[in-house]
């Protein structure tokens, strides 16, 4: 994590000059110098970094240069939006990716499997931004059945805001989460396919066949469970990249999540927000890694004993 803070800090030192972004268009040179002093940008880089780390350790990310509000509060506001589409995208990716992957593994030469394979290849070959714009064109502009942007009506539960409880909130989730899930779905589908093919050729599946167990039982009760083990890892770790991929998706659909916050922050050189976002992504990765390890231990008896 310390490495992440250093990277975060160093990179943002150089991505732009916040003074210019904050000052008036016709501000004088003195005005800008004064502003730089107020931001502490006139001090040596090492001093700045020290202060930065000290604050981060105290979980104080400072206040946004642009919004004049605590960064933690900004992130907290946006977190639910991002996590909700990431959640829906993950569920969709699993709900479609796993069955399709199994289909492709069981009938690798069947027509359906070939079609799914072809579509999946197109899926990973098409940039997210193109998919998003195409979906908006079709479902929002032409068919007018789904909203093109935003979260719709949200319901506030404590500090969490959710779009799951209103019709417009759910409708708004469809296009962004579909856009976001496509790549993951393809990934999971292909992973399940290759794992399933591997598992089906193992001795224990042969042995199960030799015991005359029904095909469905062997495929879905036994083999699938083995094939899903790596899916846990990949899905877990991919949630991290989903959060990052959400940058593009959120921009296209004006989804008020953290990705949009980050893009806006880059645009306005809002360093505290950028740094906090990067730290969040780093933290998320560490967190997801831990979750995956724990899950693995729960699912795989071989690890359960060791731990």
């Amino acid at each position, binding site marked *: 994590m310390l*490495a*992440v803070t250093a*990277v975060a800090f*160093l*990179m943002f030192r*150089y*991505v*732009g000059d916040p003074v210019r972004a904050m000052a008036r268009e016709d501000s004088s040179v003195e005005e800008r110098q004064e502003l730089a002093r107020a931001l502490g940008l006139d001090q040596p880089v090492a001093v700045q970094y020290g202060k930065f780390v000290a604050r981060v350790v105290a979980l104080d990310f400072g206040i946004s240069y642009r919004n004049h509000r605590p960064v933690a509060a900004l992130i907290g506001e946006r977190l639910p939006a991002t996590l909700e589409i990431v959640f829906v995208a993950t569920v969709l990716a699993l709900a479609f990716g796993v069955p399709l992957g199994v289909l492709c593994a069981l009938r*690798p*030469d069947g027509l359906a499997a070939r079609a799914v394979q*072809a579509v999946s*290849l*197109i899926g*990973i*070959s*098409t*940039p*997210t*931004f*193109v998919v998003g*714009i195409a979906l908006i*064109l079709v479902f929002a502009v032409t068919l007018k059945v789904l909203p093109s942007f935003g979260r719709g009506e949200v319901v506030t539960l404590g500090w969490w805001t959710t779009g799951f409880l209103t019709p417009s909130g759910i409708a708004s989730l469809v296009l962004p989460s579909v856009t976001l899930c496509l790549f993951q779905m393809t990934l999971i589908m292909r992973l399940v396919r*290759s794992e399933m*093919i*591997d598992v089906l*050729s193992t001795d224990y599946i042969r042995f199960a066949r030799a015991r005359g167990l029904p095909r469905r039982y062997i495929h879905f009760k036994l083999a699938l469970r083995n094939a899903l083990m790596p899916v846990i890892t990949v899905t877990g770790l991919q949630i*991290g*990249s989903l*959060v*990052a*991929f959400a*940058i*593009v998706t959120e921009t296209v659909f004006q989804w008020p999540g953290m990705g949009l916050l980050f893009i806006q922050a*880059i645009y306005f050189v809002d360093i505290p927000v950028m740094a906090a976002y*990067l730290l969040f*992504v*780093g933290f998320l*990765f*560490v967190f997801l890694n831990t979750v995956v390890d724990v899950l693995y231990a729960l699912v795989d008896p071989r690890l359960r004993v060791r731990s």
Partner: protein
Amino acid sequence: MRVPGSVIVAGIVATLMILAAIVAPAIAPYDPTDMATYNLIDSELPPVWTGEGDARFPLGTDNQGRDLLSAIIYGARVSVGIGGAAVLLAATIGVSLGLLAGYFGGWIDAVVMRAGDIIMSFPTILLALLVSGLARALMPDGGSVGWTPFILIGAIAIHDWVQYARTVRAAAMVEGAKDYVKAARVIGLPGRRIMLHHILPNVMSPVLVIATINLAGAVLTEATLSFLGVGMPPNYPSLGTLIRIGNEFVFSGIWWIALFPAITLVILVLAVNMVGDHLRDRFNPKLRGRS
């Protein structure tokens, strides 16, 4: 093992497109990077078959009056060039570090893999955005056309090398435990020779597979970066830049500016992916002989 027809077609398409990209100056009707050759007067001409086009510009022109066909050929050249170089750079770094980590283990392994973990905790796009921003700011002439491709190559490779390193490390550990490596050690050959002469050639197959699939990924990443505005400049466009420019026109009826580069990009990436996919299945012993 029989190679499916679709893969052969994909291979031919990929080869042709890459070849076209390489020899772009020879086959493109115009040089779109020479700003003196195009004129705003010719801007936004539709493709020739719509009846309103101009025979000089078969696929029409973009908003600057640039011949779209030439721009796409040159754009593919830039995309493939950057993607290819990024793959090469990533593979070189990744294979070297992976070999060292896998063969020697110990602290080298720990450092390399930890660095890889950190890198991997940042998604490609995010990392590339940061690296390109950093490079532009730090280099004296960072925004210059001359430097941009190298910045992009670095920005993409900095993330992708990890995959090679991990794969090669794992393969090197497997190979390193095999008897032929033991035999080489028993003979007393020095570690460097064993790594380069014995292990390296035997771990290259997965590297080839990753490289192919990464080429597709790198082209896509470059396109996304260019789409986000940190990629190639408009006077030296990649396919991604062309799509970004064209994207501003999707609602205005000037569809061809975005559509043709997008189709080219998807076909290119798709073809490379299909070949990569086939190679992966082929090198996976468990899948071999099944299809």
